[in-house]
């Protein structure tokens, strides 16, 4: 085959995006004089159908065997143009792109200099294109199973969608029950659906679905492999309760010596539990768990004469000998749905959250208004200072009449490092204000706000309704909350009338924002995820790949990617599920072709590459080289990810990363360094 390069160069205007600062005609003219360039054209939108057709026709009519597209970033359209080449029956890896938009026309103003730079970038691409080689993508099978990390509403929805499509799901949840944050909510905005009523049926479904293996009270320890073939290791923490024997009757918790003495995570400090506990009544699985950090027997080795839970449990489910268990399995795709943390209100000390018992967070109020909560839905607030020790009978409690919400606590606030809007606080504030008026009809409720963002379906209508019901909205974020006599005083400025305010109230509710989880780092380390500026996990593209990540086969759902309300979370979970179902249902994926390759004739078997490879994809094998048995490196193509670390380490240049070979990069350096 005659493989003398015949290059076509295509310079894109991208409307005026490139053409405004780069003289596109001059670049195309310049490129036509570069070596081996047969055709050089400019066109308004190369990525459009007519643009692609132009390339395809030239390949056919002019016999092109290399294509250089000078347009946007290859991260944007490399795949598009590879497909174009493939459609014209040219190997898709005969494509090279010059990034003259993101890294040229958009970042420079000087037309002359930008044009010169664009010429250089195109020349570098042409010189590299001359040395490109055809590559073949390899096909690998896909394990028909999915790992979902996180059992909140996002994880639950994604699990159900995938399981209903007939594929196996491993749903791993850190806490003893699925349900997540949504299970803590009383009503949901703006429709006032009861959160538990819509969530629990789904929880039960995940618990009983034949295709879903629920791994609660478990953590993912290790992930290796690649799309289609991930190896997963999960630690099932010891519950000290035999899941098969426990009937969920709860007598153990009633009998426990610590009943009502341990602050409940689920009730966010508003209620208590025992050392053996069910996080909340509707928990799935409805099995008890012993808190190893609090249980007297587990911490001190002694609990009276014998542990009361053991005595109380008729089926004999309690097993203090239980150990953590490691479960290993394979999956083809992974969905990360690890959720969020609520902003810690004590980081805004001016609002007195740590000092006053009647300064509470919105999530704490959520538990108070919940009929299933510790006060059975009655708004009862303690009086006095936090941390004061009082006997239960001496505790003064009261029902507040003057109630103020402070919005944007921990959101849109650079002082705490959170520039973003948490997207749910405006609406849950309106919802909680509505619920408070329902419970305490003679209450005066006001909301101190920065802006009200009622952007979703039915949001604005709900906000209007709440204001008609008598909730007052005061524009201006308070500077301070302090105590005067029996009352709390909010100091603020009404920014619409420019008047200072001192407002005496009984209860202050801090509308706390959403933050990335404290333990997000563990997930990042497991999956090599990136974080965006707000520290939430980063999607592959903010608009066009919002559930994908930079790692093939790993998808994002819910608030781990950024703050979201429930409908958006569910929508994204469904998106992630359908993306995961792609490879699962086709049963095969193409793995990348730009991987390392060894020239056995020159490899001297030193093994540097073997030590360097982060994926242990290289091994030394013995081959017969003209009658001599010699040791050479060999690449496992399924394991190689194409990073090129081995290529940089090789002393003889024998191992080369395809498409990024030394001899392909050196001409680029020559052009960009020299000309």
């Amino acid at each position, binding site marked *: 085959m005659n493989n003398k390069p015949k290059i076509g160069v295509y310079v894109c205007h991208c409307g005026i995006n490139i053409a405004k600062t780069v003289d596109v005609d001059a670049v195309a003219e310049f490129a036509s004089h570069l070596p081996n360039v047969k055709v050089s054209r400019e066109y308004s939108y190369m990525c459009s159908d007519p643009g692609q057709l132009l390339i395809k026709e030239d390949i056919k009519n002019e016999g092109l065997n290399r294509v250089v597209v000078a347009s946007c970033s290859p991260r944007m359209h490399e795949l598009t143009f590879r497909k174009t080449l493939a459609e014209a029956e040219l190997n898709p890896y005969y494509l090279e792109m010059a990034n003259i938009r993101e890294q040229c026309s958009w970042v*420079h103003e000087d037309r002359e200099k930008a044009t010169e730079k664009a010429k250089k970038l195109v020349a570098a691409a042409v010189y590299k294109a001359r040395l490109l080689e055809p590559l073949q993508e390899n096909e690998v099978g896909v394990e028909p199973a999915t790992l979902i990390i996180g059992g909140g509403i996002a994880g639950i929805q994604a699990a159900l969608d995938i399981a209903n499509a007939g594929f196996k799901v491993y749903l791993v949840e850190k806490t003893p029950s699925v349900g997540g944050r949504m299970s803590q909510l009383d009503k949901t905005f703006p429709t006032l659906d009861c959160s538990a009523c819509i969530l629990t049926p789904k929880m039960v479904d995940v618990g009983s679905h034949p295709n879903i293996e629920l791994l609660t009270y478990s953590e993912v320890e290790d992930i290796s492999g690649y799309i289609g073939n991930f190896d997963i290791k999960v630690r099932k923490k010891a519950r000290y309760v035999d899941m098969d024997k426990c009937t969920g009757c709860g007598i153990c918790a009633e009998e426990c010596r610590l009943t009502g003495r341990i602050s409940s995570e689920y009730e966010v400090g508003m209620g208590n539990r025992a050392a053996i506990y069910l996080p909340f009544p509707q928990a799935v699985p409805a099995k008890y768990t012993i808190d190893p950090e609090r249980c007297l027997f587990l911490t001190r080795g002694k609990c009276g004469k014998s542990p009361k839970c053991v005595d109380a449990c008729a089926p004999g489910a309690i097993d203090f000998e239980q150990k953590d268990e490691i479960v290993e399995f394979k999956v083809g795709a992974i969905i990360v749905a690890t959720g969020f943390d609520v902003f810690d209100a004590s980081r805004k000390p001016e609002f007195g959250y740590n000092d006053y018992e009647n300064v509470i967070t919105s999530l704490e109020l959520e538990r108070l208004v919940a009929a299933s909560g510790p006060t059975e839905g009655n708004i009862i607030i303690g009086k006095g200072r936090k941390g004061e020790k009082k006997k239960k009978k001496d505790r003064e409690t009261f029902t507040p009449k003057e109630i103020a919400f402070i919005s944007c606590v921990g959101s849109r606030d650079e002082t705490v490092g959170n520039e973003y809007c948490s997207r749910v606080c405006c609406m849950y504030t309106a919802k909680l204000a509505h619920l408070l008026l329902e419970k305490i009809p003679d209450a005066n409720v006001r909301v101190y706000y920065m802006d009200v963002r009622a952007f979703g379906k039915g949001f604005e209508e709900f906000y209007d309704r709440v204001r008609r019901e008598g909730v007052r909205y005061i524009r201006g974020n308070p500077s301070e909350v302090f105590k005067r006599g029996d009352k709390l005083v909010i100091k603020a400025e009404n920014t619409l009338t420019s008047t200072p305010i001192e407002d005496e109230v009984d209860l202050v509710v801090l509308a706390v924002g959403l933050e990335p989880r404290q333990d997000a780092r563990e997930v990042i380390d497991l999956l090599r995820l990136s974080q965006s500026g707000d520290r939430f996990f980063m999607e592959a593209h903010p608009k066009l790949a919002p559930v994908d990540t930079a790692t093939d086969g790993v998808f994002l759902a819910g608030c781990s990617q950024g703050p979201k309300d429930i409908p958006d979370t569910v929508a994204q979970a469904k998106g992630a599920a359908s993306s995961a179902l792609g490879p699962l249902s086709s049963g095969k994926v193409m793995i990348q072709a730009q991987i390392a390759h060894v020239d056995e004739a020159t490899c001297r078997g030193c093994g540097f590459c073997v030590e360097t490879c982060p994926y242990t994809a290289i091994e030394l094998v013995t081959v017969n080289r003209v009658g001599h048995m010699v040791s050479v490196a060999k690449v496992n193509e399924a394991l190689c990810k194409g990073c090129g670390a081995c290529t940089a380490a090789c002393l003889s240049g024998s191992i080369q990363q395809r498409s990024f070979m030394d001899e392909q*990069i050196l001409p680029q350096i020559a052009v960009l360094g020299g000309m």
Partner: protein
Amino acid sequence: MKEQFEPNVVAFLCNWCSYAGADLAGTSRVQYQPNVNIIRVMCSGRVNPLFVINALQQGADGVLISGCHPGDCHYIEGNFYARRRFGLMKELLDYVGVDPRRFNMSWVSASEGNKWKDVVEEVVEKAKEAGPFEQFRRNKINW
């Protein structure tokens, strides 16, 4: 009047963090000098130290290698290799008399478009201070 010296810097950027960060700078229309020419590699660990020498030989006045933040490498540990290699490289260049301002490394993540701009400005400024580089230059190789 003599025209102000405009240095030419060759930059090697990893695909996943720094190249994406430079793309983000573009998407955000952050403006910076056109003196830095980018070569995309999949990982900063791919950059062979000889590339640096080669760039200087070809006529570059400065070289930049930019990868993911340490610990965030898309390929687990490629940027650690780069850090180790080019830490040594910098000392070697210094030893043979190359102004250390010509050789730079940075960590720019995919979300740091503004940081990319700062890096470019710093690198160009340093190369400007160091002046044109002639020491290594050899006749243009005909590829």
